[in-house]
């Protein structure tokens, strides 16, 4: 058992977790802390090790090395049933041979709670997930969304300190998913417990989380609140994964000046070595289309699509790069435009160090 130096309300800490399957590294030196009552999201593309991380926290998987600390106590070798946390599994995993009521009561009966208490908790939990009157239903007779809610009810009746949720909305359609997002936030506030949430959906992560841990190939790419992650991505992977971005090769000529295809763009970044090759990240909504003579460079509008609130425009620039632009102004295809980006909106990033940190298409 090891006491650690952490802030008093840190509830869970992972320290240098390493995990391999069949000699393949899945989790590499993963460390992070979670505060009490936080809604924290593990975000990353499919196969990046999110479920494995959650299973290590839940006790279903042993790390090859590293520690899991709960309130400072090393629980790395505790079996799942000894951990004060509950999981909502990716596949819901309701017991098919039990009705809703028996599913929800499963944990409480093991803890030998009184009949009256269990009855109270069942009706409380069903009210919480808006499924009153479903006590006697069988899981097979429920829709995906309803099964999802029962799985949540089954977990929260046990009053876990931390609730682990593995892509709980992954199998639901868009409308239901958005509804459930709000319900989960309400639920978290009502319960006042810590949520560790796993998703590959960046929008979901940005909407729901207090803090996001962006992962790729078992390595943490960035930790921060949604606004920081969106506005200040630390590398091209995060920039690409969180929303659409223009990611362009550039040369950092000197502090606060980058050239793209030979054209100089003033920026605000400093501290790169002279003439260093970098990734330049520009959000589509940060590209301004102006009169050709007012642009840093010029281009021709190749394509325009109306997206409801804004237009999405492809501009083929003179410097050989195609920019993705979002603007509320319409341009007809073939128009000559000037391209401008204010220095604040240009984000300069180091190129990934190794080839296996290459960008994975988030839609893959």
């Amino acid at each position, binding site marked *: 058992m090891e006491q650690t130096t952490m802030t008093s309300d840190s509830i869970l800490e992972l320290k240098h977790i390493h995990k391999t399957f069949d000699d393949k590294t899945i989790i590499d030196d993963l460390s992070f802390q979670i505060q009490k009552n936080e809604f924290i999201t593990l975000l990353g593309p499919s196969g990046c090790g999110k479920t494995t991380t959650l299973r290590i926290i*839940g006790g*279903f998987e042993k790390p090859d090395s590293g520690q899991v600390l709960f309130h400072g106590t090393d629980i790395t070798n505790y079996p799942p049933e000894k951990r004060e946390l509950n*999981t909502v599994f990716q596949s819901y*995993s*309701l017991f*098919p041979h039990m009705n809703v009521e028996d599913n929800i009561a499963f944990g409480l009966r*093991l803890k030998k709670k009184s009949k009256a208490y269990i009855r109270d908790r069942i009706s409380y939990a069903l009210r919480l997930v808006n499924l009153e009157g479903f006590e006697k239903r069988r899981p097979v007779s429920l829709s995906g969304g309803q099964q999802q809610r029962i799985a949540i009810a*089954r977990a929260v009746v046990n009053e876990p300190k931390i609730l682990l949720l593995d892509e709980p909305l992954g199998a639901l359609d868009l409308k239901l998913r958005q509804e459930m997002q709000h319900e989960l936030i309400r639920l978290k506030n009502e319960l006042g417990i810590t949520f560790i949430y796993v998703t590959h959906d960046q929008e979901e992560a940005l909407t729901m989380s207090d803090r996001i841990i962006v992962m790729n190939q078992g390595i943490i790419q960035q930790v921060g609140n949604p606004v920081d992650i969106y506005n200040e991505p630390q590398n091209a992977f995060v920039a690409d994964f969180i929303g659409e971005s223009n990611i362009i090769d550039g040369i950092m000529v000197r502090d606060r000046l980058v050239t793209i295809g030979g054209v100089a763009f003033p920026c605000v970044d400093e501290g790169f070595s002279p003439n260093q090759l970098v990734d330049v990240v520009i959000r589509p909504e940060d590209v301004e289309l102006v009169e050709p003579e007012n642009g840093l460079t010029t281009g021709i509008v190749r394509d325009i699509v109306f997206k409801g609130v804004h237009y999405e425009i492809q501009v083929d620039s003179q410097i050989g790069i195609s920019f993705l632009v979002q603007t509320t102004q319409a341009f007809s295809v073939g128009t000559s435009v000037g391209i401008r980006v204010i220095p604040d909106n240009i984000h300069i990033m180091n190129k990934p160090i190794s080839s296996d940190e290459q960008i994975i298409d988030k839609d893959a």
Partner: protein
Amino acid sequence: MNRKLLAAPYLVWVAGFIIIPLLFILGKALTTADGGFTLQNIAAIASPIHRKALLLSLQLALLCTVICVLLAYPLALIVRSSKLNQQSIVMFILILPMWMNFILRILALQMLLSNNGILNMILSRFSIAPLEIINTPAAIVFGMVYDFLPYMILPVMNSILSIDNNLIAAARDLGANGFHVFWKVIFPLSLPGVASGITMVFVPAMTAFVISDILGGGKIQLLGNVIEQEFSVSMDWNLGSGLSVALMLFILATSLLLGRGQNQSDRGRLLW
């Protein structure tokens, strides 16, 4: 129209080999030798000699079924906990004896178990007194288990192997230890498979007559033997049919009792 045409061969088969013989047996069972209606042939099951045979059949069939469950169930649990690529090999080895002719298997068993057989030869090597097992009920049960075990293993193994690992993880997550996981998740979910296996072993064991003939030395009369002799030795087809019908009714009642707890939708899957 086309579909009906496609179904025709099966209908002919069902009619020719199932319905008509059944009606024939039923007709024989309900008539006397000169064609008059009677319930005597079916009621004959209650006569002391037939009752004794039925009781012995029931005892041996139950014993055989219980032994098959006790062998198949732990095996399925062990296979479940082993690695996936070994599972198909284990299945294959268990099914392998089914590829051999059933009479040949029983004859081989007879040689193995006989007083001067291989078993006793091996025992004598170790100076152990020979076992007089051949021509006893024990030999018959041994033969039945040997013959029918695969019919227990397949459905039991199928139901146990198809239990989702996530259900077990969910149970552990909610505070269940290994003991709870077994009794509250694995056991109830395996029951349909066990019920299937019991039906598939109990029915042939109940009606067996070749096994008891060969391994019982013709001295032990199961109901199957009695019926067979009515047909082939006494040539009293009416009595033979009546006893058959009585046995069928008995088995039907037992299966209905067993099947009550079994989910209708599971049945097809469990039989593969």
